[in-house]
């Protein structure tokens, strides 16, 4: 046995084993503001190579961290204590497509938008559409159970994953579930989705594909108060409609985006809703009418229905440019992600404004209103002394008020390192012990992405006390 790096190099070749200082500093972080440390980064191209990386790490007693594109916002892909980074960037192929049954096998490093773009000619797409979809990987989507604007009607990543081929933490390769709908036994695929790299490395994913809709209507509704906007959202859902997407932008966000892209946005309004409905012509037209009527009941100021594909694209660009736009306000931002019951949106948003005021921070809200998924964006300048601490404290209060309102810690970005220590806000020690049990079953030695999600690491029982082969 050579050194860790030597052994990895024998398997992958020197070009795909990186340990230079500039690369190590790149892979020490993700898109959050957290940093760790790694000794080496591997770029495998096949399942067998991932397996070798895991086995070599095991042999050297070093933990490993699966990594997709590193766009995660909760520090999930941040390596701790010199863990080996296994990056799937070079595993970016579509392996097969079953057009009739609407499923595909893909490698985990394939980028989310590349998949949908490459299926366009078949009239199909991969429904989860995180705002980061140009750069994030399918493997990362699986590990974080990613969401996006169009997950309101179509469901988050978990609803679109049929099977996952994995390298388990001990280096064993197996496939969790399959193309068949009701595999024998426990739903191991369901456990793996959202497991943030702590149950093994996904090396191939079977995704469900969604038919492109025959018709689309997109509209922008603006309101003099956030309450009116939020009540319109609840009204739409209570009336039995689930639009394809319902996104909200508050005034500061509208102003920032308008200055950036000049889309004639209602900058004088407190909030605007971007609502998209899809489907067949009659249902579509009826839904638009009902949504507009509900908006009028809640004092909508203007209703702007996109008249053509260009206008629709412009409205969506407004929603999706928020991150670019805010860079013009302050150099740094901290994006939060919590969920509250839809009916609590006005109350919680009011508290978020109050918290930001108290910590003398600017906050913009641009979020998935349809499912109550808040994304308060704190903008700041890290060079101003004391700011980072104020951002941290304000963030913690935002998480607290969300949970107190009957909400949850994260809707789509995951727990990772960022929210690990907030887990007790939502779960008791008994609840957490059950989550540790799942981790122990997959990874009794705790070598896959340790230190994430669970506030106290699992200390696992000894399975070998149970006689081999006995089903208890």
């Amino acid at each position, binding site marked *: 046995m050579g050194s860790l790096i030597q052994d990895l190099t024998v398997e992958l070749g020197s070009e795909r084993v990186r340990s230079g200082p500039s690369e190590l500093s790149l892979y020490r972080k993700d898109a959050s503001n957290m940093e760790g440390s790694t000794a080496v980064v591997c770029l495998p191209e096949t399942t067998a190579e991932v397996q070798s990386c895991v086995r070599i790490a095991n042999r050297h007693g070093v933990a490993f961290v699966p990594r997709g594109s590193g766009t995660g916002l909760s520090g999930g892909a941040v390596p701790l204590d010199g863990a080996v980074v296994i990056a799937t960037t070079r595993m970016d192929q579509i392996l097969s497509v*079953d057009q009739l049954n609407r499923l595909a096998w893909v490698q985990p490093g394939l980028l989310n938008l590349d998949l949908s773009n490459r299926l366009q000619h078949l009239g199909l797409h991969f429904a989860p559409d995180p705002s980061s979809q140009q750069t994030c990987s399918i493997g990362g989507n699986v590990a974080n159970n990613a969401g996006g604007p169009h997950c309101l009607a179509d469901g988050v990543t978990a609803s679109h994953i049929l099977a996952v081929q994995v390298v388990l933490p001990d280096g064993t390769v*197996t496939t969790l579930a399959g193309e068949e*709908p009701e595999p024998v036994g426990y739903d191991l695929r369901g456990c793996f989705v959202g497991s943030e790299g702590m149950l093994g490395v996904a090396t191939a994913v079977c995704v469900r594909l969604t038919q492109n809709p025959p018709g689309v209507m997109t509209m922008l509704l603006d309101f003099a108060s956030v309450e009116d906007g939020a009540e319109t959202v609840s009204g739409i859902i209570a009336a039995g409609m689930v639009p394809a997407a319902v996104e909200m932008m508050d005034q500061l966000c509208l102003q920032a985006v308008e200055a950036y892209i000049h889309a004639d946005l209602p900058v004088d309004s407190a909030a605007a809703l971007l609502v998209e409905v899809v489907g067949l012509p009659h249902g579509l037209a009826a839904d638009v009418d009902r949504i507009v009527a509900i908006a009028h009941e809640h004092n909508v100021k203007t209703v702007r229905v996109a008249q053509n594909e260009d206008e629709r694209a412009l409205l969506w660009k407004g929603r999706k440019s928020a991150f670019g736009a805010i860079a013009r306000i302050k150099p740094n931002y901290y994006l939060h992600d919590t969920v*509250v019951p839809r009916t609590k949106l006005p109350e919680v948003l009011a508290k978020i404004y109050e918290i930001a005021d108290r910590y003398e921070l600017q906050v913009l809200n641009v979020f998935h209103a349809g499912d109550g998924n808040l994304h308060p964006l704190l903008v700041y300048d890290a060079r101003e002394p004391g700011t980072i601490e104020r951002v941290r404290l304000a963030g913690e209060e935002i998480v607290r008020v969300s949970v107190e309102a009957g909400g949850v810690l994260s*809707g789509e970005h995951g727990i990772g390192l960022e929210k690990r220590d907030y887990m007790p806000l939502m779960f008791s020690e008994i609840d957490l012990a059950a989550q540790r049990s799942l981790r*122990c079953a997959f990874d009794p030695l705790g070598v896959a992405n340790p230190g994430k*999600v669970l506030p106290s690491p699992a200390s696992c029982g000894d399975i070998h006390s149970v006689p081999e082969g006995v089903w208890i």
Partner: protein
Amino acid sequence: MDLNEFAEEIGSTGPVTIAGLATRGGPVEGVRPVMAPVGIEWVQPAEMTVCCGAGTPVEELDAALAAHGQSVAIPPTGTVGGALVVGHSGLRRLGYGPVRDTLLQTNYVNARGEIVKAGGPTVKNVSGFDLCRLLVGSHGTLGFLGDVILRTRPRAQHEQWFTTTDDPESVVAQLYRPTSVLWDGTSTWVLLEGDRRDVETQADNAKLGRADPPDDVPTGGRWSVAPSELPNLIGTGRFIAEIGVGIVHHEHPQSPRPIDPPIAELHRRLKFEFDPEGRMNPGVDVLALG
């Protein structure tokens, strides 16, 4: 009975089994049975969520939701908890999705008699590992569901079954998001939902005739196969297959499916972690239930 009483009854020692309405197999014989709390705690139409005891009959839940124009994607008969831990979907799975996507949160009782919360109450949540998905389909071998919060869905304004003798592949290619497509090797049945005019236009374009759903769905076996394998069913006996899904209602049982040894090992470890003494539904081997 409330959740605490349920937990006390389960206790922390000795074999124990869960009894529902016995529509899906019933409790383990010769073992002390317990019953889960019954009753609907709340319905929140604007959240599209509902909370009920796991012992609540599916019909009762369905009636409560119907009053709000909603439903939940759990097939009828038996208790809500029984339907969840068995995990079998209904004939509308193509449109409504699998049972596992309905469970948002549960308070279940573990092998130590403790109440454990899994998941969260909102329609979107990625806070921690997804124990809800582990529990759906676990046949009561890892814990007993006490109460549940489920995701609801709006009922369609209009629905209609159709039939045709065209092969299902060409039918599916012409339709936008049908709720169900069934095939018995000769005829194809289609369930369409939505605005009445859209339903009729779709049916006309695909040359579908109005019909009742198939009435004699075979119950000898419930097969689960890759949807691409459905054409191979011809000649295996009488069946009704769910196109695009891969569930087959067959007159014969499915032959045992191979289980990869690492999968069996993961099952053994999960059972050990959640129920080291094997007291919950003893003797039930989820891998043998195929």
